[in-house]
């Protein structure tokens, strides 16, 4: 599969990356591991005049344990994070979601920043340009119809990061740096809630760090998938339990990770949560698996995680 023509630029530091962005504007995009971007470019889903490679910014590869939080550079590899002792000791949900991400070879290449900023996916969107134009442009491609759900007026492509649902349960925040300076905000605020443009980043902003408060938790991540490796999630459920409260994160059933907090893991409360999650989640007929089945699996994966946490707490 042939790539279209573009200019390749490599930045040695953040300032240089921003300067290059200023030069090319919205015709440019940032590249880290490339495991999401390069296939998108090959399929002509991303069309840009310039690709700015961030891998020269070595400072963003580091993972540092601070007093109150784990400070993760956005270029840290999924595989590297999986082996991190703080992740292992404090954040079992994140450890499990990293482990579930794709496969080892792609974990060695893919970065956590790229994983969080991967675009939303749909069976009718992640296809070649020829395939897509034959079908007629959909809402996410700038057309006026949805090819997954006839008559739909809103795009429901799935945000398919395994790690985002786990990170929101851990209260993670992010730091971005852009032409107008740096800003920090909760990871939950990174999402627009719209599948067409899933992130609220301003033009040229670079995700530089992810911070996770250092608080010990019990938890896990369950992923619904067809194959045991490589696949994107068809539903992802994360659970992190702290003293007295538990947070659930749901992924791959809509444009963002959904977060719910409960103060007890008693059956009645969990039933309520599962009902609430089933209502909020928006699984659509846009994956290889039936959306009704994906929705019905929500309470089942929730229960599986609760059982796991209860066993660990014993």
């Amino acid at each position, binding site marked *: 599969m042939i790539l279209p*023509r573009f200019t*390749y630029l490599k930045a040695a530091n953040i300032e240089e990356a921003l300067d290059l962005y200023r030069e090319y504007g919205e015709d440019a995009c940032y590249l880290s591991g490339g495991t999401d971007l390069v*296939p998108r470019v090959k399929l002509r889903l991303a069309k840009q005049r310039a690709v700015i490679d961030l891998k020269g910014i070595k400072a963003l590869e580091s993972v540092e344990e601070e007093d109150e939080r784990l400070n993760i550079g956005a270029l840290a590899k999924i595989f590297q994070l999986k082996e991190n002792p703080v992740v292992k000791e404090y954040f079992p949900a994140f450890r499990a979601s990293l482990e579930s991400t794709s*496969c*080892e070879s792609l974990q060695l*290449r893919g970065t956590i920043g790229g994983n969080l900023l991967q675009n939303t996916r749909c069976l009718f969107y992640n296809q070649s340009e020829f395939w897509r134009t034959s079908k007629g442009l959909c809402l996410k491609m700038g057309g006026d119809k949805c090819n997954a759900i006839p008559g739909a007026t809103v795009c429901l492509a799935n945000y398919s990061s395994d790690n985002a649902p786990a990170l929101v349960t851990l209260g993670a925040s992010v730091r971005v740096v852009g032409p107008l300076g740096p800003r920090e905000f909760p990871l939950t605020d990174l999402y627009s809630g719209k599948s067409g443009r899933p992130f609220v980043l301003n033009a040229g902003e670079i995700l530089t760090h992810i911070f996770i408060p250092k608080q010990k938790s019990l938890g896990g991540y369950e992923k619904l998938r067809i194959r*045991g490796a490589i696949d994107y999630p068809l539903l992802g459920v994360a659970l992190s339990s702290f003293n007295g409260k538990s947070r659930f994160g749901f992924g791959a059933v809509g444009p963002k990770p959904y977060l719910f907090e409960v103060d007890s893991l008693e059956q009645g409360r969990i039933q309520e949560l599962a009902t609430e999650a089933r209502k909020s989640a928006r699984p659509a007929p846009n994956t290889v698996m039936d959306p009704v089945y994906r929705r019905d699996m929500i309470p089942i994966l929730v229960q599986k995680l609760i059982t796991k946490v209860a066993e660990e707490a014993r």
Partner: protein
Amino acid sequence: MEKIHVTFTVNGDLIETDVLPSQTLLDTLRTTLELTGTKEGCGLGACGTCTVLLNGEPTRSCIVLAAEADGADVVTIEGLAHGEEVHPLQESFMANGAVQCGFCSPGMILTAKALLHRKENPSKEEIITSMSSNLCRCTGYKKIIEAVESVRDNG
């Protein structure tokens, strides 16, 4: 479109060449360097067929730009044998019947090589996890796992 001058080693040989920004490492290996042992499968980074070792790590060369490989050390399947003497993994794949159509074999063997380099004595489960990075459409996984176990046990 302006070409980019890149320098990297491939199977120990220093390569200096000019590449298009839109050229993948896979294109460069197969077309420019005529190292056709690396195969193209899906072309989208999903199947692992085009796996090479990039600085020792198993990497899907169809989604790596040649420009990104500047300064790197690349090993392809051609770099494993010494003349007529094949690598123990290649020997084991043959002895264990782990090759059916053979299209996935270069990627499989390089993924296994990286694992055995990273971990001296991986468990069967660890071998399965690592080898799950690569798809085999002939469904020959059992013998592939056995071939890797055999090298782990016997070198």
